[in-house]
């Protein structure tokens, strides 16, 4: 009787495993070749030892499931070539001898995990930021912005890729540069004789012209080259939504 009970429990366990594994999403789907190559490289370089994908992996470094959406391809390419340049005083990622072709394959895999995988939308509960705060990458908020103002939505996207590593949007949160909380109000009161929009635009293009007290001249100087005028207008529109009390 005892052995029968144990045998029954083993059978139930077997059925449970088979059912769950067989019914899990994406079990049998085929991947595009470049994504499969990217995943092989992901394992060869030991990325899983430190990073997680869908919560699977080491927790020494951020989850990368949606990193492609949050940071964009240019950022990821730069980062993989020289990881220490982006977060100099934080936990260091080893610098691998990785070719551009391999970087492309890994990015293809990260693009797939962000956008195209069967469970891309359902995991994690909120996209996991590397640095910064405020839930600005929440897909629901992005969708609402797009309905209300496509320019603001585009600015939000660019902000998450270009600005979020140094500027938070919550009151009192200082990363590298000042928080953007209440920026629209402060920009109009800078006393430079400019409108708030012009001040913000000039701060992006010529960051050294006006430094906020207490902060160094650390901001990237080449946004005029890497961003188009439409993109700068979009960021400005987005930053103008940050009025105090909101």
């Amino acid at each position, binding site marked *: 009787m005892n052995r029968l009970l144990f045998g029954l429990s083993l059978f*139930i366990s077997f059925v449970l495993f088979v059912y*769950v594994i067989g019914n*899990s999403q994406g079990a049998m789907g085929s991947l595009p070749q470049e994504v499969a190559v990217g995943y092989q490289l992901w*394992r060869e370089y030991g990325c899983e*030892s430190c990073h997680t994908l869908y919560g699977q*992996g080491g927790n020494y470094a951020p*989850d990368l499931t949606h990193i492609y959406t949050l940071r964009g391809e240019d950022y990821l390419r730069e980062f993989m070539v020289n990881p220490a340049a982006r977060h100099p005083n934080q936990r260091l990622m080893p610098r691998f001898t990785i070719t551009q072709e391999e970087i492309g394959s890994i990015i293809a895999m990260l693009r797939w995990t962000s956008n195209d995988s069967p469970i891309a939308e359902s*995991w994690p509960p909120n996209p996991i930021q590397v*640095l910064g705060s405020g839930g600005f990458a929440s897909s629901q908020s992005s969708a609402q912005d797009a309905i209300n103002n496509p320019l603001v939505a585009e600015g939000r996207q660019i902000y998450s890729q270009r600005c979020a590593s140094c500027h938070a949007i919550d009151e009192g949160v200082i990363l590298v540069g000042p928080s953007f909380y209440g920026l629209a109000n402060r920009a109009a009161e800078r006393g430079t004789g400019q409108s708030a929009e012009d001040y913000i635009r000039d701060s992006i293009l010529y960051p050294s012209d006006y430094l906020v007290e207490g902060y160094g001249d650390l901001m990237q100087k080449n946004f005029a080259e890497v961003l188009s005028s439409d993109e700068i207008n979009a960021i400005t529109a987005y930053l103008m939504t940050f009025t105090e009390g909101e």
Partner: protein
Amino acid sequence: MAKRIAYQMLVQASLLLLFYAAASLFTGVKFLPTDALATSLPFMQVSALKHILLDAALLTGLLGAAVYFLVVGDSPLLIWAYRLWTVFLLATGVAGVLGYFEGRHMLELPYYLDIAQLVVLVLWLLIFVQGKANMAREIFLAALLIIGVSYSFSLIPIQSPLYDRILRVLMVNGRYFLAYPLAAVVIAYWMKPDIQVYQVASAMVILGSMVSIAPLTATGAVWATGIIIAPLIFLFALFITRMTISGDYWGNLSLVLMMLSLGVLGAAFAVPALGMHMLGTQLTEVQYDLAGWAVMSLLFSLICQLSEDNHQGFRFWLIAAGLVTSAAALIIAGVAQSFMERVLSIGYLDTQNTILSLYIIWIIGILLWGFGILLQSFRLLRRDI
């Protein structure tokens, strides 16, 4: 001869745990803000060593315990199995030092060592099948089979992160939450044959299976899974209370750690609203650690029994205090991570800076239990049985 080999394997397990303690210390130090060895000894290498050493220690200890209880007299097969297992452990150590471990989290053994391990496991299986027909032997053999199946699945070439995630429930979770605790229950029974081993083992199989599949949340009845686990915890507690009377401190510690790992954390992970926020944080890591430490504590109970050592000595309290300190720090860190990163969408690096003090407490815990294992290993090496 069999008893001697059993004891030597338990000593091997203890030494592996000592190296595991060192690897854990290196791992913990990596989480501090400044790491002088960040690029020369990257996290991936020390974390791989940590996982493999724990796995090797648990398997060696469980096999050694089974040799003690199931094998009598001399057997050429036993001697060869022991030698091959020792060679496998040495080869694993060399592979680790030379940096040949793979970059698969919790599955870092290279393919050729995986295959070698499987071959030797089959040998051990044959030895135990031919051994004494002890009560509950088939439960231990079932646990060993599950371990073999989990390692076999890890040999499947996997091209997709989703497919890997799905098979993990068998490759890793099946070992830590099902096979190892099952084997530990049998060892506990052989040490003290007054527990209802078949009932406990059956409950353990169901509980371990539910905890193993929790990360997938593939079934629509996952809420029901969480509800089922909760009463099973209490059912399990009813069986184990009979063991706590005897004053086996190591055994009691083992049960507490298993309760934390499979019961509390297992139930939390099974509930979708909680598990989705917790997966991939320190809570995942500490759940594996707690399950491993639970089995480790039981093996120490056996070692103390065999070496006629005092269960309640300074070494026990040092190791217990260290494990509890480490576990508490990591659990709080994991809860903070889940809340800050997943609920509040605060950045990963910002969260890590905030919970830095917990990592310092974690390291203090590692130092405590690591020192305790050092004393334990030293004492074992000095004794001659």
